[in-house]
């Protein structure tokens, strides 16, 4: 019941927007509902930690510590994104770039997007998990193409094509694991049930599980944005409206990643850790190589953020490859920290795009002097992103590296650190060019405005600052999260 209610919150939000049409009061109601959703997710997490997993919807839904943790991440990023989304749509309407009808459609789709992600993480059954992940692709395609420019249409076509192929492979992999489960004696009706799979894993056929897991990692890995099938990601994340990019980069990627984590538990039990580890390390290092090399020459700041997501997904895959509970806890902490930081960065990049009129790095100069609040948030976000303390990404990267050394993946961790240094230099360089310097004409933007009229209201800075503060807080005092992280890590690495 609790789980269904949690799923229903964004559905109600979408219905409210659909019935009330896009108006500030309606949009703020939906934001309020997203706040309720976050509170519900936190309550669920507390309950799961204190008194064990919660079942729902006749056994189709289940919240174990891992799902509860992911609902909190989804809830947090959803709240940030829909909060800033109100301002984004209001601005677009004021500039005549969208209509009330399209803003309504946008609001409905965003709420549907949040609901499908919740479905994917709360699924007790790997079939439902698949349906949820595939549904996220369908609802987000129109959001990616929302601006209807040529670039946006191109990005949405590539996005749905590549991700549909990926998800078809993931389905095939799921069916193969189902076959292995049935063969291992699980009755057909339960052979997609996540707990039954884990229980039966040691008896499963090696050859079939190996093929199935490889297809699953490749397939869901497409949605995660892991190389070699990452090519849709920079296009989609740079073309989508900023609040949508925040949701996609901040949490959709990692929702797909938890699908890999779940199947990894099955594969580890069936095959032993060597094969899953080799597969994940390969894709992780490939992703890190692609991301770091393309970040150096990047000219567009939204694409820069997108490539940085590929880098962080690579780090997650490497952490998952290590696989011990310490590594998984660090991976989950990284998922939360990256979700908060990246969504704040995408949201502020949307603000920068709106006031500067360009997404070229070279087109933005001396932001810190001209728009201190916006430049400050963006700059601090970049510092958090490249892993400086006190932000939680620093903690989680350190813990992941330590775990990797413990299991003999020190060489891979060293390569990853090398890639992170390259990323640090590249991102810091791009950031310095955008933020620092002396304005040519103090206080004036390229459109001749003085910047006074476009000063960020508190309602716009509050969620951004809040996201960064939260990220720093969990970096400094991880204690409120520690029991949840420990329990969730035990789900993946029993």
């Amino acid at each position, binding site marked *: 019941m609790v789980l269904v209610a949690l799923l229903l919150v964004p559905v109600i939000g979408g219905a409210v927007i659909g019935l009330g049409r896009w108006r500030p009061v309606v949009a703020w109601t939906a934001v309020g509902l997203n706040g309720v959703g976050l509170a519900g997710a936190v309550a669920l997490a507390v309950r799961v930690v204190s008194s064990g997993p919660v079942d729902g919807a006749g056994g189709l839904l289940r919240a174990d510590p891992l799902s509860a943790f992911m609902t909190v991440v989804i809830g947090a990023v959803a709240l940030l994104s829909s909060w800033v989304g109100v301002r984004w749509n209001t601005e677009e309407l004021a500039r005549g770039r969208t209509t009330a009808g399209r803003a309504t459609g946008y609001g409905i789709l965003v709420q549907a997007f949040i609901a499908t992600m919740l479905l994917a993480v709360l699924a007790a059954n790997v*079939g439902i998990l698949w349906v949820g992940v595939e549904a996220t692709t369908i609802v987000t395609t129109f959001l990616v193409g929302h601006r209807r420019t040529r670039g946006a249409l191109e990005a949405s076509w590539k996005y749905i094509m590549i991700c549909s192929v990926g998800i078809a492979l993931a389905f095939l992999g799921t069916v193969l694991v189902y076959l292995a489960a049935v063969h291992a004696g699980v009755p057909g009706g339960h052979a997609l049930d996540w707990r039954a799979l884990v229980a039966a894993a040691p008896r499963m056929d090696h050859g*079939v599980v190996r093929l199935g897991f490889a297809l699953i990692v490749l397939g869901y890995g497409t949605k995660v944005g892991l190389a070699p099938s990452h090519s849709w990601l920079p296009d989609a994340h740079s073309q989508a409206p900023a609040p949508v990019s925040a949701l996609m980069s901040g949490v959709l990627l990692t929702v797909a990643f938890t699908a890999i984590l779940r199947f990894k538990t099955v594969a580890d039990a069936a095959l032993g850790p060597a094969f899953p580890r080799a597969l994940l390390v390969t894709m992780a290092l490939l992703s890190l190589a692609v991301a770091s090399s393309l970040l150096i020459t990047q000219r567009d700041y939204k694409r820069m953020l997108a490539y940085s997501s590929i880098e962080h997904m690579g780090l997650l895959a490497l952490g998952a490859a290590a696989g011990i509970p310490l590594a998984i806890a660090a991976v989950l902490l990284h998922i939360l920290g990256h979700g908060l930081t990246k969504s704040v960065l995408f949201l502020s990049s949307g603000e920068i795009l709106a006031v500067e009129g360009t997404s070229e790095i070279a087109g933005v100069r001396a932001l810190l002097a001209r728009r201190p609040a916006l430049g400050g948030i963006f700059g601090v976000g970049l510092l958090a992103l490249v892993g400086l303390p006190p932000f939680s990404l620093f903690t989680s990267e350190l813990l992941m590296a330590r775990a990797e050394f413990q299991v003999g993946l020190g060489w891979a961790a060293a390569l990853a650190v090398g890639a992170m240094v390259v990323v640090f230099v590249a991102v810091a360089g791009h950031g310095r060019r955008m933020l620092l310097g002396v304005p040519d004409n103090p206080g004036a933007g390229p459109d001749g405005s003085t910047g006074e009229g476009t000063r960020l209201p508190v309602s716009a800075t509050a969620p951004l600052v809040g996201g960064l503060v939260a990220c720093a807080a969990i970096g400094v005092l991880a204690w409120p999260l520690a029991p949840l992280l420990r329990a969730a890590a035990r789900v993946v690495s029993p």
Partner: protein
Amino acid sequence: MRAGSYDSVLALAVGAVLVCAVAALWLSSVRGVVRVLAAQGLALGLVALLLGLHVHDTALVATAGVVVGLKAVVIPTLLRRVAGETHSRETRPLVNVPASLVAAAALSLLAFSTTRDVVRLVPTGAGKLVPVGFATLLLGFFVLVARRKPVFQMVGLLLVDNAVALIAFLITAGVPFLIELGVSLDVLLGVVVLMVLASRLRADYGEVDLDALQELRD
């Protein structure tokens, strides 16, 4: 049905799915390809029906109905509407037809060699046909990458999808019905979304080749 004739009818239906994929690789008119796709949907429905009757599984028989309705009727109709007015043909595929057919043969061999473990594990005679499903899958991929028109890419995606469904039927006699429904719904919605995108592309930019879409790159 006697065991011998059941096996051969099933093999025939599965073979028809593969033949349709080869035909899709070979044809260059949109109408022809869509017709072939509908025929493939029918053959796929027949596979599900035969398996369902054989193991007395009503859910699988119902699935067969869903498959035929969706893949032989609804989706082809939608595709025809996208292709609609224009008599568009694939005039410049990235790989020409003779080379495509050679590739198809090579891909089929690959499919047979990679699926030994799966064939070994499936208890029923249907398992022997699994490599045909994988061959169809690889042909679908080939159509997807070798064609430039949006409609043909959609056809490639649907071939991949049909192949995955075929494999699922053959090795497990279908996943539970509820999941099957969810999957079918997702596929249908995906096609609708692609259709809308394709018509937006055409409305805004005329008849496009997808390799003309090169605005976004590094």
